[in-house]
């Protein structure tokens, strides 16, 4: 197990390095120079080409790409994420605050997705073909196909404009003001959780249905065990593997969804930071945010792999 972990950690580092290199190179391959964009967006009428060159030099953008990458990698290794080209802020300080916000909403959405999704999936499987199964299946399909921004519009219309019960924008951390935080988080979490709920529901339903046909489940029924015991002890545990696997991909979905949700609900998280920095070609910000998001996804996948062994002792890591 120990050697497996070390091997996986090394692989994770390699993946992060490869992603960081690809992002670094691809960003620079996109048409458009951040210094030129800075000048044109700022209407700096007195900026001469010489001043632009000086600014480019100051930001280190005039060096060969390999040198830039190695220098940036060295900085990252020392925990220095650099400074935003477009807005002069310290990226590490900015990320430090924002990552907590994104994680709070993302974790809550994931947890709700898991609990509600598994619960609905089990109910649908057990009540296969019944009214509840049909309703949930339709809703799950809507949850899977409806774009999150559209869901957000519906929620804003209902809860903000008509019922006046939830705030439109902003985010407060729960330990600052729990009540306010709860009200501000409901819509963003709902929008983010809808996809994971739908996916997990469908996956759970299908896994549970598969297990329900197994001989050992039939045996459990024939032994006269009650439904709760059969489902929890015999069905769910054996149906859990694909659901756990799915959770690794769920995190990617949640992080991707944060871009939309944070922009609509004015939440100061990593998603909105990534969107704005990408549009303005703010290289160091995009690189830092991408590396962090990659690290989160890679490590969560590693966690999922480790969970396999805990769920199914037959799985051995060597």
């Amino acid at each position, binding site marked *: 197990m120990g050697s497996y972990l070390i091997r996986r950690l090394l692989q994770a580092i390699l993946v992060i390095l490869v992603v960081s290199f690809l992002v670094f190179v691809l960003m620079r391959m996109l048409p458009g120079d951040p210094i030129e964009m800075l000048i044109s967006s700022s209407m700096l009428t007195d900026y001469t080409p010489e001043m632009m060159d000086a600014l480019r030099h100051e930001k280190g953008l005039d060096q060969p790409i390999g040198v830039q990458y190695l220098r940036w990698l060295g900085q990252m290794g020392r925990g220095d994420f650099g400074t935003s080209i477009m807005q002069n*802020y310290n990226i590490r300080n900015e990320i430090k605050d924002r990552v907590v916000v994104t994680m709070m909403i993302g974790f809550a959405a994931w947890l709700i997705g898991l609990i509600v999704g598994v619960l609905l999936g089990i109910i649908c499987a057990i009540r296969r073909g019944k009214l509840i199964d049909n309703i949930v299946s339709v809703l799950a399909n809507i949850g899977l196909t409806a774009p999150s921004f559209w869901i957000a519009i519906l929620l804003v219309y209902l809860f903000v404009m008509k019922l006046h019960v939830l705030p439109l924008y902003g985010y407060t951390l729960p330990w600052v003001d729990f009540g306010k935080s709860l009200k501000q988080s409901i819509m963003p979490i709902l929008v983010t959780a809808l996809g994971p709920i739908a996916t997990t529901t469908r996956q759970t339903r299908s896994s549970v249905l598969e297990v329900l046909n197994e001989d050992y489940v039939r045996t459990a029924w024939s032994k006269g065990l009650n439904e709760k015991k059969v489902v929890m002890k015999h069905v769910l545990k054996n149906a859990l593997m694909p659901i756990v696997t799915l959770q690794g991909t769920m995190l990617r979905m949640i992080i991707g969804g944060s871009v939309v949700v944070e922009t609509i609900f004015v939440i100061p998280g990593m998603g909105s930071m990534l969107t704005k920095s990408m549009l303005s070609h703010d290289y160091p910000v995009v690189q830092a945010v991408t590396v962090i998001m990659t690290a989160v996804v890679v490590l969560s996948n590693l966690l999922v792999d480790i969970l396999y062994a805990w769920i199914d002792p037959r799985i051995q890591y060597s």
Partner: protein
Amino acid sequence: MKKVLALVLAVLMLLALAACGNSSQPTPQPDGSGSQDTPSKEETPTPAPSGEETPAPSGESEEPAASEGPQYGGNLRIVSVAEGATPIGVPWNVIGIDVNLCVPFGETLLTEASNGNIGPWLATEWEVDTEEPSVTFTLREGVKFTDGSDFNADVCVWNITHFIDAGSISPSVLSAEKIGDYKVKVHLDNWANTILSTFASHSFSMISKEYYEANGEEKAQENPVGTGPFIMKEYIHGQSITFVKNENYWQEGKPYLDSVTYIFMSDTMTQNTAMQLDGEDGVDVLNTTNAQQIITLTASDALYMATNSIGPVSLMPSSNDEGDPLSDIRVRQAVSYAIDRDALIAARGFGILEAATQFVPEAWGAHLDSSYDVSYDPAKAAELLKEAGYENGFSMKFYVMPNMVDSDIVVAIQEMLGKVGITVELEFPDSGGYSNYRFGGWDNGCLVQHTRSLAQIGNTFGLYLDVKKDDATGEYSWTYMPDVWRPTEPLYEAEQAAGRSPEADDALLQEIHKIIMENMVVIPLYNIPDCFIMKNYVHDTGFAEWGAGTIWLPSEAWISQD
């Protein structure tokens, strides 16, 4: 079972339809609901610090009349499209749109109205010497920073020196010298009459020397200390920034507001919803150039708008080969004649946009007489193309600026040009791709670009059509647009003459404009306004009345409390 499913679906569809629809959906108003900018040259006294007279700001608004004078209290919530992450306490480190956030706490030596008129603020007087290029400012006495330190000549020189060292101020500003306790002389490399507007920009707000030196740059960046009517209270990066009233502000009895909050909101749907909400979740001021958004929001009785012309969206032709169709003036004229601007505006103007017949809009003194207007004449376009040897047409490309340009209008222009045989391929690059064309050059085609008309129109010429002269070789070149046909030498001479005159001279500025129009350096399409949409209870902000440097006057703004 089926009934239940149908019911669920029906409820969902109803909800969706209700959210998509808008009960107050406006219809385009051909007469233009609300005001359309006219930054007139009229000069009338307006409220100014300590009852002084400043040139009248000129943007128009339909602000509802208030039954009483200014009232105290309230929080003014302004939508900002800035990222909201930049530390704003040290102005020479603040760039781009984030400069707007400096307005509540920072103050400048001068103010600039949207018609370009310069007025006093922290400097009460200024004296220009064009022979030995310099400006001498007399500073206002009795002004204190929010840390209690004095604003005087020492502090002013220290600030200007930092702007010079940081390279953030015009390179023509060489140094600043204290010549009295409240007198500062700024030495210039050469005289340009646009320099005064520099000292009206919040990029050059004065900050406390004492605080900066005692606490260092990092702390000064996070804790802005200016002389302004508000003090920063809370900055939630990426979400909002709140300023509270400066109780010791140098203008007695001001500001009227208790606080000002900027909310960093970039999504249009969220902006529209927030503008239509009352109470805690609403916002009070929104700045937009989106005609559809303007007309949607101003349909509400609870909102009014103030607008300010910011110039046309134009075609900017370029060709690097003398044999290229666009190198021929007749072809560029034909392109202009082939475009029916009135039809474009009727279809997509929403009563907000206007046909642009010249590069400089009517509100500016550099606008030319009607003989320079371009109009729709497809027969003439065909004739000119024939004369130029392109009676069978030719092909070119449009590179369309993102965000500011209406893509439907561009498609309509493509269709109009197609009717005279000009085939246009459209490219809609993102911001990066567009800036690549803008700075790297484009060939055999036109940028479709918003060319912003600044309060000092000389700055607009410099920003988009700057010509340089190499003193060693005597050669002229375009700063960002190398090509073969542009009238570099006459334009350079005209720009120099207009810039060097003691004050902005409309006749000299018109000479530049004539060269642009006679050579079709730019083909104007339609004018767009900068629009500030406000709640009816918001008064005297000055939004749309002041130039891009001054922006608004937070010390004057107030909110009806009833």
